[in-house]
């Protein structure tokens, strides 16, 4: 079985790094990159072999109501591929960047990073709701430390804010898990899903409200978004890419979709809430981003807006909407991480994040400015880049589902996104400031991380071609749409 290794490998790597690292961070880098490469290979292999099947791993030989189980289906494998892909590029980018911001003790960064990957892989793989909570706390705990890793006053401030909001939401989630346990007397998610229709239907609404607030805070949907711009813009750039690219999806969106679709059975009232909150997030996020001159803060506000598209797509709850949302999950991870790498590269070399102080970038940082162009076109939804297709699918799905109002707001949000990234390109990367060519450029690792993601931004458009879609995205949509299927597959009846 492959699943336990997706949790064991990064956890083992984290402890080995703390044991063997001395003054230098060389061994830490080698170990963590090896671990993440093997994770990516395992995830890719199991994604393409899973197809429409579901595999269960029951821990320590007990059978399902008594044990913690790990569930391998198309949706969880898809998320694992995204997480480990972004983790690999993030590590490639980190090597020079972390040596730049922290002269000593850089190995601590890699240990924490591996714990972050452990937490996210665990959240995605697990089929037990309390186990999910524990892995979520592992991931969050390491992000609190990683946001503050640079050791500046603003970073501690952002980390404190993030930690307070994170622990409030975790407490709400724990309360929800407690209520769910007292109502159903089981913690296995498939068993909960099987028992819920037979008990008082009000339980679902109480627990749903608690989970919506708790996981909504993790996903930074609109009324719960306040911590995101601070935390995501203050963290070191590779960590911002991990946070914006995958953490809010793994801990927020993925868990919400699992719970509200596969466990609660996709109730109409929650779908309406998803659609409304998604649309509000799209608009408010992009409007707040328009006025920003701090590059990373602008990107952080765009994360709120893009998560809004994903939530809107899932809320539409027709196959096309879910296809668009699933596709946008991957696309947003690719281009938002790339944009954060661009911001990190500029910040490291020029020492500024202010768009007004940039300029002339095409001459001094050719790779960074070229890849930022690709990412800007992707996020703004320009064909033939991936962002165009996923947004188009979501908008078409909204019209098909009979919600033209939401489709209108989604189009308007996309136009504002385009405007805001034209600002980035016009004033930032192609600005008029004449900046001298600095002595050091982007290192090879940073460049290759950016180029890989830029190429993937173009290549992943191909996932929409019917032949490729049938083996990649369609099984994921089937898992989400097939509401009772999760129970049957996991419990084997």
């Amino acid at each position, binding site marked *: 079985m492959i699943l336990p290794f997706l949790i064991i490998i990064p956890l083992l790597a984290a402890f080995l790094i703390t044991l063997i690292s001395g003054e230098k961070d060389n061994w830490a880098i080698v170990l963590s990159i090896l671990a993440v490469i093997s994770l990516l290979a395992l995830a890719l292999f199991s994604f393409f072999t899973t197809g429409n099947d579901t595999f269960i791993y029951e821990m320590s030989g007990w059978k399902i109501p008594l044990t913690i189980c790990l569930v391998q289906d198309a949706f969880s494998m898809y998320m694992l591929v995204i997480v480990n892909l972004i983790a690999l590029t993030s590590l490639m980018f980190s090597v020079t960047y972390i040596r730049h911001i922290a002269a000593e003790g850089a190995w601590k960064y890699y240990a924490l990073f591996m714990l972050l990957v452990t937490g996210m892989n665990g959240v995605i793989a697990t089929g037990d709701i*309390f186990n999910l909570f524990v892995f979520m706390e592992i991931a969050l705990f390491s992000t609190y*430390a990683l946001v503050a890793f640079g050791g500046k006053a603003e970073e501690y401030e952002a980390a404190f804010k993030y930690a307070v909001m994170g622990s409030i939401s975790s*407490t709400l989630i724990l309360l929800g898990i407690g209520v769910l346990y007292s109502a159903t007397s089981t913690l296995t998610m498939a068993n909960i899903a099987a028992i819920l229709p037979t008990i008082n239907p009000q339980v679902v609404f109480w627990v749903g409200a608690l989970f919506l607030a708790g996981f909504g805070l993790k996903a930074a949907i609109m009324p719960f978004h306040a911590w995101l711009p601070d935390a995501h813009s203050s963290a070191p750039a590779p960590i911002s890419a991990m946070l914006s690219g995958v953490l809010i999806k793994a801990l927020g969106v993925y868990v919400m979709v699992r719970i509200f679709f596969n466990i609660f059975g996709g109730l109409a009232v929650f779908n309406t809430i998803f659609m409304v909150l998604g649309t509000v997030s799209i608009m408010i996020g992009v409007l707040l981003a328009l006025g920003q001159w701090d590059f990373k803060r602008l990107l952080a506000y765009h994360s709120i807006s893009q998560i809004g598209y994903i939530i809107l797509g899932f809320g539409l709850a027709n196959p096309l909407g879910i296809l668009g949302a699933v596709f946008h999950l991957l696309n947003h991870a690719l281009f938002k991480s790339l944009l954060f790498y661009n911001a990190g590269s500029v910040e490291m070399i020029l020492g500024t994040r202010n768009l007004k102080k940039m300029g002339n970038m095409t001459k001094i940082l050719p790779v960074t400015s070229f890849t930022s162009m690709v990412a800007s076109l992707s996020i703004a939804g320009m064909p033939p880049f991936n962002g165009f297709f996923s947004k188009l699918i979501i908008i078409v799905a909204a019209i098909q589902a009979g919600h033209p109002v939401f489709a209108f707001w989604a189009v308007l949000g996309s136009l504002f996104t385009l405007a805001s990234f034209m600002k980035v390109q016009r004033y930032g990367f192609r600005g008029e400031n004449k900046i001298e060519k600095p002595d050091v450029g982007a290192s090879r690792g940073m460049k290759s991380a950016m180029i890989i993601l830029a190429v993937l931004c173009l290549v992943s458009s191909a996932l929409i071609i019917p032949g490729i879609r049938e083996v990649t995205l369609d099984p994921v949509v089937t898992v989400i749409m097939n509401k009772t299927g999760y129970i049957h597959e996991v419990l084997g009846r």
Partner: protein
Amino acid sequence: MIVYILCFALLLVGIYGALTKKDLIKIILSLGIMGYSVNLMIILFAYKKDAGYAILVKDAVSTNMVDPLPQALILTSIVIELGITAMLVALAIRLFEKYKTFDITKIRRLSG
């Protein structure tokens, strides 16, 4: 029923404190209160009147016992809360070194 309502009131006290207090340490304590109230509530879910402890003793057959699973969950959750609290206190100490204050209205370099 009354115990659950009291627990919920305790949770609300915690949320109120975390959202309105201006002192870093008081915020951390409020988060602690929130955590305790949820732990207490989950323990109470497992409570049964006149039930024994859930330990297998040789030759003694116990039919009526409390649910042991929430107790295991709460042990885990207490350990997690310990870690989070230690982390928050460490961050508060670092914030005090940088800003020379615990007042959150004065710790605002991030805005917008």
